[in-house]
């Protein structure tokens, strides 16, 4: 089994996630699509790690998961704050940075 299969699946997941970020307007779903892209990167990392027989890629994947958790935490905090301020929960209407 060649690594090309894994890379193909990884590329497909990344493309689906990128398309979701571009298409969807709900910030929650945008966060989920960001998660999809990070997972695609993780899959490629694990595949390459197995191909070289080296554990460094697995540690890299773990760190990527930590960063993904942080990003989702802060993103959810921002969405909750938007909800509190009664802003519309829609990324198209958020055009300015001054709240």
């Amino acid at each position, binding site marked *: 089994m060649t690594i090309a299969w894994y890379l193909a699946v990884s590329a497909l997941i990344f493309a689906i996630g990128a398309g979701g970020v571009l298409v969807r307007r709900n910030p929650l779903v945008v966060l989920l699509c960001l998660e999809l892209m990070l997972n695609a990167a*993780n899959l490629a990392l*694990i595949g390459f790690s197995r191909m070289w*027989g080296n*554990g460094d890629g697995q*540690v890299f994947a773990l760190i990527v998961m930590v960063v993904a958790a942080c990003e989702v935490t*802060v993103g959810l905090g921002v969405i909750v704050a938007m909800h509190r301020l009664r802003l519309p929960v829609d990324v198209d209407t958020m055009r300015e940075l001054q709240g």
Partner: protein
Amino acid sequence: MISAVLFFIAAAGTLAGAIGVIVLKDPFYCVLALVGHLLSLAVLFIAALGSGLHAIGTDGAHYAAGFGTPEAIGSLLLTKFLIPFEVASYLLLIAAVGAVTLARRRGGLDDRGDGTPTISVMEFMRPRPFGSGTMAEGFGHADALSVQHSAQRQERET
């Protein structure tokens, strides 16, 4: 061979979950699709570790004993990658504090008076009313505390 079968089943599940995330209307079902996607992805990781992956035209690495076990990853995290590990822990701490700060309930106490709520660094420097933000307030004793406090202040002034 088994890992190849596992790979194709898990890959189908992963892609179906990913498509479900971006196609479904209700965000709740999107999250459910993401959960399915993550479960399939875990199976895919196991399939990747159990199979002899190799680039086209090569033989690939040998399956070393203990490769990919929690023991191997843990010892790597605590020896070779100790600094990234510690930095990641600080990143998690900062993200947790930041999320609590962002999602904090800020009605009532720090309204500017014109009805426009704001998010500002200066809000954290402003002295808070006596008894607020304490355990006593959580138990509903803040009113009693502040009444007592103002009574004491009045006594002192008179």
